């Protein structure tokens, strides 16, 4: 039974990351259209006709989904990816070429395993912890997986066997290493504030009230850390104004220039899963996770866990939308601006933030 519960949890968490990734894909397609004053995907499924009576009641729903571009995103993109020719450039190692997209996706999904998705609850006599693995130092595990994800990009750029993908991979490697430092320092500051490495305990600590009035959310305790993590995290996902590794005006498509079909889509899947992961991190560390301010839900009841999960997911979707809006609003940085921001701005600010946090923690 224990094993069964674990398998169900693995299934749910895996599918949650995929669902969030496809939701982000849809938001990106329709959101970018909205921002750029286009219509966006609205054809696939929008004109479905059928004479069969048992299909007819479902038709309005299908047409609405098609008109909203949902069918285009969920079905057409992936089917197209599966049926395209799988192209491996000449002189590239076939093994590494196939391995790179897997490494781009796998660590992101593994990182979901240590993050709690709802408060603990009891159901049918079993106490269920809604996360796959409760390892010692879960926050560090997320950081480790983020640093492993670089290899997908690096290997992809190298096996592309052309200058543009190699340049993209070099940019990505430099960028991700540079922005990992401020990110790690903000994590350390969070650990100092709440006195634990365990993400579940961090969320529990955030439900307390500061001076009996303000909830002790991360954004209240660590406002500077929040800004730094927002910027560093967007650079880690290689999106938004930080998408220099795939700068299409200079590098064709950067590190995945030589990829086609489903392998190409896997890179996108990894990217959107990263957006979702980062949104989940922000919600858990800085916005109280499943906490509603000044509302105390009963402990250990299944419906309270469900409400908590819905609250958490609302926050996650909000941050997904925020990232997509930023990505489609701001123009791309220049490379020296990117490096200056990482090393001369974010790193000193994160260091100072950590020192001040530690001093305050000891003094108060």
């Amino acid at each position, binding site marked *: 039974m224990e094993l069964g519960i674990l398998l169900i949890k693995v299934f749910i968490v895996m599918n949650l990351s995929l669902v969030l990734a496809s939701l982000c894909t849809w938001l990106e397609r329709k959101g970018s259209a909205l921002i750029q004053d286009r219509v966006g995907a609205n054809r696939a499924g929008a004109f479905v006709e059928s004479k069969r009576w048992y299909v007819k009641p479902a038709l309005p729903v299908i047409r609405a989904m098609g008109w909203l571009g949902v069918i285009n995103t969920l079905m057409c993109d992936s089917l197209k990816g599966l049926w395209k020719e799988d192209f491996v450039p000449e002189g590239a190692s076939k093994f590494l070429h196939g391995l790179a997209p897997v490494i781009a996706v796998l660590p992101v999904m593994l990182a979901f395993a240590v993050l709690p998705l709802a408060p603990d609850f009891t159901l049918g006599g079993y106490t269920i912890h809604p996360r796959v693995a409760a390892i*010692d130092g879960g926050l560090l595990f997320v950081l*480790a997986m983020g640093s492993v994800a670089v290899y997908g990009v690096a290997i992809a750029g190298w096996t592309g066997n052309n200058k543009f993908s190699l340049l993209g991979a070099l940019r990505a490697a430099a960028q*991700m290493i540079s922005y990992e430092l401020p990110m790690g320092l903000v994590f350390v500051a969070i650990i100092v504030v709440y006195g634990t490495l365990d993400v579940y305990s961090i969320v529990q600590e955030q439900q307390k009230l500061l001076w009996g009035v303000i909830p002790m959310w991360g954004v209240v305790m660590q406002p500077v850390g929040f800004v730094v993590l927002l910027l560093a995290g967007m650079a880690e996902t290689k999106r938004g104004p930080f998408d220099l590794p795939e700068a299409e005006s200079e590098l064709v498509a950067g590190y995945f220039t030589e990829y086609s079909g489903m392998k190409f889509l896997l890179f996108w899947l990894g990217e959107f899963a990263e957006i979702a992961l980062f949104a989940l991190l922000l919600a858990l560390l800085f916005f109280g996770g499943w906490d509603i301010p000044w509302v105390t839900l009963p402990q250990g009841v299944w419906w309270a866990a469900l409400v908590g999960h819905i609250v958490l997911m609302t926050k996650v979707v909000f941050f997904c939308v925020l990232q997509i809006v930023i990505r489609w609003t701001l123009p791309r940085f220049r490379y020296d601006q990117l490096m200056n921001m990482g090393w001369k701005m974010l790193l000193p600010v994160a260091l100072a933030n950590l020192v001040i946090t530690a001093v305050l923690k000891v003094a108060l």
Partner: protein
Amino acid sequence: MTFMGFVLSAVAVAAALGVVFNRNPLYSAFCLIVNLLAMAGLYSVLNAHFLAVTQVVVYAGAIMVLVLFVLMLLNLKAESGRKLGIFRTLIAAIIAGSVVTTVYPSVSANFEQLSIHALQENAWRSEGTVKAVGEEIYGRYIRQFELSSLVLLIGIVGAVMLSKRKHSTIGPREGGLGGMK
């Protein structure tokens, strides 16, 4: 757990051999990454989760990315099949043999108690938790820890001094792209 320990050990040894025998330096680097990840897996089998995660963050995540970065920047080709002369082979064999004969006794002496026992499932120990490691570093080994961080600081300052020397051709230039234009 014992089974996973042996699987990970086999992966680590195979990857280590791959580092040595690959002609292409990039493949060697990839093998080294696999080796480091397998070592991290071994640590977590031994319940040292913190050490495992640190291994992934620091070695597999940061240092090896820099190594890969440099290798890709230089864009090295695979080495041609160059053979060592008899004299060099002899010297290499002597060095390798002396290292093995020095290290092996100290490893094998504790092997029975240490590794097999630690790989057993019931050998739960709290030595690898963040709390235990922190208490050791900031309690018993505080002086050594601070000294080693000083050594690292000296290394960083030295690297900055070397790269910022006058008449250096590598330093930052006008436009910030280091002569890429």
